[in-house]
């Protein structure tokens, strides 16, 4: 059992909808995700499975009034995020949790110099100004191995390469020494050499500060290299979770297995790739039963009931699949 004092983020059974003209979109359907202090936790899964929406709720960053929470809870360092006032959230966002978005260009204001933007964040969240703020900013850039930080300070975002911008944002995310950093596809836009460097920097800095990282990615290889534990999501719910090596090495849910089978390195060049037949469920209807069953080769009558996450036998590894339950017995 997890020591409650070490839990940084606890999302429990979150159910969330977007009301639209065409009816409600049931985006999150009972997702539970936990991140402990200093842990690196990955979320992988289907495009549209609510990885971004779920993790944005850790900071309550979805536009107010556009969504409805129908059930569940979100706690950050023990505090109820769903009940916090917007004013409290501003503090929490600066102090306990920071976010690195996929597209660094949209996260930075294109018309203002890098240095000014950094100083603003540092003033807001750390209450530092003048010399002290500047020193911290320069040190953060240096930590991210940006050569000549003084000079980068005076540049505009578009004058930096994608990799440099992303390192600026990662440095900035650490400026308030948060307990948790949410990184949504933070290295996707980087080439593999820069990506490797950035992952190293992220890991080293997080280790030295004890920061936990919630790392969302489509790249199973990167998840394998970077994350201690993994959640696999499908249709707004977690279908498998466990230590990364277990989940990717001995997947217990047919969806996880199907994802691995679809990797291009599992087919000869030019050969057809194995995508998952069928289409993703219609989220405007409420889901009943296992959401993956219509596309699952091993589906049977029991799949009309929705399976809970069932332990597979090895430590902390669980799958929401009746087959996993049978395998244990």
């Amino acid at each position, binding site marked *: 059992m997890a020591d409650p004092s070490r839990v940084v983020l606890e999302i429990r059974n979150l159910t969330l909808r977007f009301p*639209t003209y*065409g009816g409600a979109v049931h985006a999150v359907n009972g997702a539970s995700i936990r991140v402990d202090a200093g842990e690196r936790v990955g979320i*992988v*899964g*289907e*495009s*549209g*499975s609510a990885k*971004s929406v779920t993790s944005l709720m850790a900071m309550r960053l979805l536009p107010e009034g556009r969504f409805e929470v129908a059930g569940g809870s979100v706690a950050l360092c023990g505090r109820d995020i769903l009940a916090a006032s917007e004013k409290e959230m501003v503090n929490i966002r600066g102090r306990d949790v920071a976010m690195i978005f*996929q*597209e660094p*260009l*949209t996260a930075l204001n294109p018309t203002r110099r890098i240095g000014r933007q950094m100083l603003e964040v540092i003033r807001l969240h750390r209450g530092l100004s003048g010399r002290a703020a500047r020193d911290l900013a320069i040190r953060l850039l240096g930590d991210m191995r940006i*050569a000549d930080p003084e000079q980068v300070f005076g540049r505009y975002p578009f*004058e930096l*390469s*994608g*990799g440099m911008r992303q390192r600026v944002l990662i440095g900035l995310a650490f400026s308030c020494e948060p307990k948790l950093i949410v990184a949504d*596809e933070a290295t*996707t*836009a*980087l*080439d*593999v*050499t*820069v*990506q*490797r*460097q950035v*992952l*190293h920097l992220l*890991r080293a800095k997080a280790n030295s500060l004890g920061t936990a990282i919630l790392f969302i990615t*489509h*790249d199973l*290889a*990167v998840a*394998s*290299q*970077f994350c201690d534990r993994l959640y696999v999501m499908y249709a707004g719910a977690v279908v498998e979770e466990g230590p990364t*090596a277990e989940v*990717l*090495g001995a997947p217990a849910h047919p969806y996880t297995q*199907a*994802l691995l089978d*679809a*990797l*291009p*390195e599992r*087919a000869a*060049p*030019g050969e*057809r*790739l*194995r*995508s*998952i037949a069928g*289409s*993703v469920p*219609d989220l*405007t209807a409420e889901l009943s039963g296992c959401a993956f069953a219509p596309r699952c080769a091993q589906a049977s009558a029991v799949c009309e009931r929705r399976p809970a996450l069932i332990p597979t036998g090895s430590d902390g590894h669980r799958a929401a699949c009746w087959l996993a339950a049978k395998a244990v017995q």
Partner: protein
Amino acid sequence: MTHSPLLVLDGVSVRFPVGMDWLGRPIAHVHALNGVDIAVEAGEVLGVVGESGCGKSTLANVLTRLVKPTAGSLAWTVGARQRLQIVFQDPQSSLDPRLPVWRIITEPVFLREHRTVADLKRLAGDLAEQVGLRREQIGRYPHEFSGGQRQRIAIARALSAQPDVIVLDEPTSALDVSVQAQILNLLADLRRARGLTYILISHNISVVRHFCDRIAVMYLGQIVELGPAADVLARPAHPYTRLLLDAVPEIGRSLDAGLAIADTELPSNRRLPAGCFFRDRCPFVVDGCERPQSLAPFAGLTADNHLARCHRAADLVEDIV
């Protein structure tokens, strides 16, 4: 496969002015492309890989006429240029937020020919299904979609124009691997059926290995290695290609495996280095690297169209085989 070049780039260079003095003159330039020579064959899939900021998207923008070369030329076979579509790297900014998805997808058709709304919606629905979206979703707006779903809208839009050439700038990096497989299969089918030519820019080496006939490796605005995909990936001749391949993540391989990570900052494209552009980071540097290098065949190659911009290419390849 036919071997008539569809498009020939000759010494294409692009530089962007940065910063202005009080007379409105640029203070400096960013040298995004520095002499790109390549002939794209009709019907081939050309992969373009390279470091962030090395000029891949700028190259794509040159092909689509969004950016004019500062030097060098492009020669197209007749008509080919009109039948080119691009899927941009960042779908967030390339989809008009005010239009419903069916309008976005059929925009190229809408601009070209007169069709009824019902007809356009039917076409949009068909394309949406081909890229793994649901037909019912085409009345929604871009912000109601996830990152990967928006990427697929952009791909459907490019397909609606029935192009002959498609430039794909990181088309699958926002997609899960199953949708990625579906899209790559679809692109392969279209190529077989209609003889399409693709220029695929990607950071994902597995995708490039799977999908491309030829690979161009770029560094600091130049092609540093060019050849058949299998040769370049199995027998990289340029030290930068080696560095790149060494960093490819693999399931189960530790982040710490492979060559040591250099602490150095990436090279600046404000002031271009003299001689070989990769010299400062190259572990194999010797006398002679201070001279400019040309993209050329080398001794010991196994495919005669395998070129590298390194005077030591022959030694380096031998040392791998």
